């Protein structure tokens, strides 16, 4: 192809070997008449057909109003296949009304409106060369009159001033997390502290070590999430409560102590084969949940990272990179499971400063 530097869209439309086109363009086919163009009966029939669609659309719109006022919602929300009578009838009547209007209009266009194809010539997307030149001239004149190019001091300081204006814009966003809400050191700690009881996550009752059955997996939480006068933990509210709940969730399992590897520190951190891990996946932070007792593997349902709970919750499959943090546990004098300390590393998804906190 010839590569000219001033492409003219008009000329370049024409292939260089137009004379060699194997078959000449026969041109637009002749217009053919539709039955509705030539047969008055067909025309009348189409008119009636279209009008009938519009009338039916009106009927459905009225039925919509009837349905709106006749069907109760609330208690009877699953009348038809899990959906309420109101939702089903409103959807059907509205949809039918709209569809009939739509088909009516399209039928009108296809059957009764003129159907002769028209030809319109295209124009190149580019402006004519003289317009381009005039524009460049105007631009240069304008810039020249502004004199910005001749006064670099003014130009540079102006650009600098506008650029520095970005600082206030960015700084203004600082209080998206106001005050010490931006303290990322919080990621290093959870609410767990020495002696805090492990409680069942829904009811908040403490767990006797002797109650934990072999092969069980118990979803548990820190006792501080269930404050009472008896345990003396302070009420948590709002964001703080949610954050501590999100970080403090644990799973407790019991297996034959002989199955636990050294990675779990069986002598220091477990109680008679009872072992406790953070419930929050180290991949992107989903709560893990699916436990297979024969292999003591636990699977995260979000992205299928699989952890071996007998072997320090090391990742055996899936995209996670780190083992679930283990919570060192003991029993108190009443025989309930308690934490020896907080987790010894940040729980949940990785983050840039993780090793630094």
């Amino acid at each position, binding site marked *: *192809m010839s*590569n000219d530097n001033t*492409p003219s*869209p008009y000329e370049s*439309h024409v292939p260089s070997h137009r004379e*060699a086109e*194997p*078959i000449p*363009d*026969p041109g*637009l*086919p002749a217009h053919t008449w539709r039955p509705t163009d030539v047969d008055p009966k067909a025309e009348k029939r189409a008119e009636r057909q279209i009008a009938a669609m519009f009338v039916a659309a009106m009927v459905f719109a009225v039925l919509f109003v009837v349905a709106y006022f006749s069907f109760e*919602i*609330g208690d009877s*929300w699953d009348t038809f296949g899990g959906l309420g009578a109101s*939702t089903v009838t*409103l*959807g059907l009547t509205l949809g039918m009304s*709209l569809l009939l*209007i739509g088909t*009516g*209009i*399209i039928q*009108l266009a296809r059957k009764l*409106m*003129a159907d002769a*194809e028209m*030809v*319109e*010539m*295209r124009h*190149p997307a*580019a402006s004519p060369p003289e317009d381009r030149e005039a524009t460049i001239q105007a631009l240069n004149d304008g810039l020249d009159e502004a004199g910005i190019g001749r006064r670099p001091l003014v130009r540079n300081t102006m650009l600098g001033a506008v650029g520095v204006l970005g600082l206030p814009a960015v700084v203004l966003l600082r209080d*998206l*997390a106001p005050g010490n*809400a*931006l303290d*990322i050191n919080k990621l290093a700690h959870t609410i767990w502290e020495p002696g805090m009881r492990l409680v069942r996550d829904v009811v908040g009752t403490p767990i006797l070590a002797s109650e934990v059955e072999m092969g069980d997996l118990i979803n548990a939480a820190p006792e501080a999430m269930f404050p009472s006068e008896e345990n003396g933990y302070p009420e948590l509210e709002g*964001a703080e409560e*949610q*954050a501590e709940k*999100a970080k403090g*969730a644990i799973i407790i399992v019991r297996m034959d102590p002989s199955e636990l590897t050294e990675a779990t520190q069986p002598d220091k951190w477990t109680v008679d084969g009872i072992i406790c891990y953070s419930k929050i996946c180290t*991949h*992107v*932070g*989903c709560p893990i949940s699916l436990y297979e007792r024969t292999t003591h593997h636990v699977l995260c*349902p*979000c992205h*299928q*990272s699989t952890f071996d709970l007998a072997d320090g919750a090391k990742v055996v499959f*899936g*995209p*996670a990179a780190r083992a679930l943090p283990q919570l060192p546990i003991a029993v108190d004098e009443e025989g309930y499971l308690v934490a020896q300390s907080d987790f010894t590393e940040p729980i949940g*998804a*990785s*983050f*840039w*400063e993780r*090793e630094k906190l």
Partner: protein
Amino acid sequence: MSSIDTSKVATSNRTDAATASKPGRAGSLATWADDRLGLASAMKKNLRKVFPDHWSFMLGEIALWSFVVLLLTGVFLTLWFNPSMGHITYEGSYDQLRGVGMSESMASTLHISFDVRGGLLMRQMHHWAASIFVASMMVHLLRVAFTGAYRKPRELNWVIGCLLLLLGTLEGFTGYSLPDDLLSGTGVRAADGFLKATPVVGTYMSFLLFGGEFPGESIIPRLYIIHVLLIPGILLALIAAHMLLLVYHKHTQWPGPGRTEQNVVGYPMLPVYAAKAGGFFFMVFGVIAIMGGLMSINPVWKFGPYDPTKVTAGSQPDWYMGWPDGLLRIIPTGWESVIFGYTISWNVMLPILILPPLMLVILMLLPFIEGWITGDKRDHHLLQRPRNAPTRTAVMVALMTFYGLAWAAGGNDIIAIRLDLSINQITYFMRVAIFLGPILAFWITRRWCISLQRHDNEKLLHGYETGVITRSPEGAYAERHLPINPTSAYTLTARDRDEVYTVGSDTDAAGVDAPNSRSEKLRAKLSSWMYSHNVQKPTRAELEEAHHHAEHEAELQAGLDHPVDGHQFDDHRLRDTTDVPLRD
């Protein structure tokens, strides 16, 4: 009208006298408006603007109209939705959650679903319309790519379209996160993990977005304003630009008799195209209404309110988020490094923060890369059949295969359960297939396209197969071919010959090589890779020669007892009329 009754001429500062005849009501309104807006000059051409017709041009229209449905149903939902994470106890009509603590956004979603008549319908219509919006944008994108409609002068409109797809996806994510139910909350927590995986600033980005530690009390109101104001505003502006460019460039059309690069053939905007497009809006709206009425989507009451300690098996994002999720799932174990004490999570960065943006950039660059390789600087308004651009078609199919495999990987748990397979094996398979699949798809597609090109040439040169077998006196069997009709034949040849770019062809007048000859060599190599396998249409001489040969054959058979054209028993004579432009 030789004399004008000047008593009726209105006073006017225009150069011509205002019309004396009494206009109709609509006419006087139009005059009133034009006196102030001067619209007539712009409307004069555009009211009868010609739009070509083809079913595939409707795909973008589905996206446009479903966006309008989204605006309408979305406004309805905002009248009741309360984007607050304030904790309340649900006391509404849905008995199974009555007395359960949840956020106000979840409670107001339940209120819309169970205590506002038409509320559940509108919620479901909104969600279905969102799915259709994204899906139709994707299919529209494929149509544009496969037909080469993104070539000059439409590259920028392609880029705008890609941005619309990105924004539509983000709009969907922010939207389905709003009810603060268990499923969407799990998605938001994963998004928090993605943010935290961003090097250097990730942890702070997470804290700033959530107003502190996850989950905080700010994320829902913030997602809400992004969902109802920020993204829709940008979407509207980009859709307007997309449509303006469409009008300015005029729509592409398929080649055919009388349809050239210089013209556009079709129906005028007023009345036919306006009626068809307007009617189609009602149809899209109607279909979405029926889907909203009959098909349950996102039943948040079944998931329950968000609780950061809970999750359900089979948690899946909405389908258009599935492919990055799939990439996330098939990353091998342990891809994380600690450098100078800082953690770099390749296992999250690669599938979420790097690959999807990279895919988008590749997509946006496609017309520019193709334009550079071919060196083609002409405007293109005639569409190409996918087979006539085998390399482009194959690249798109390879990208689709990558997308499809990643998407399937995002459902590896569902596939494992439904097909009773091992999730580990599916994942191992995907880790390999994601690389091999696209290569295989590229190769198969390209060969397939080239075969189809050969087939087209066969039809042009030797006609189509009639299915009639004749035996020659020597006993040889041959199938009778008949020429295809002239309209089809012209349409098959209405395409450019591909020309492989060669170094040296780009010299200036003095014959000096262009200065950047290394990139030119690469360009020549790529051009050869792209074009050299293609089958070009026959020349006039080849066609004449072939037809001459056919006539000669016919003469030889003229003496037979029963000269048959092979169409005594079928309807080819009826169907092969000139008004059927092209048929395989």
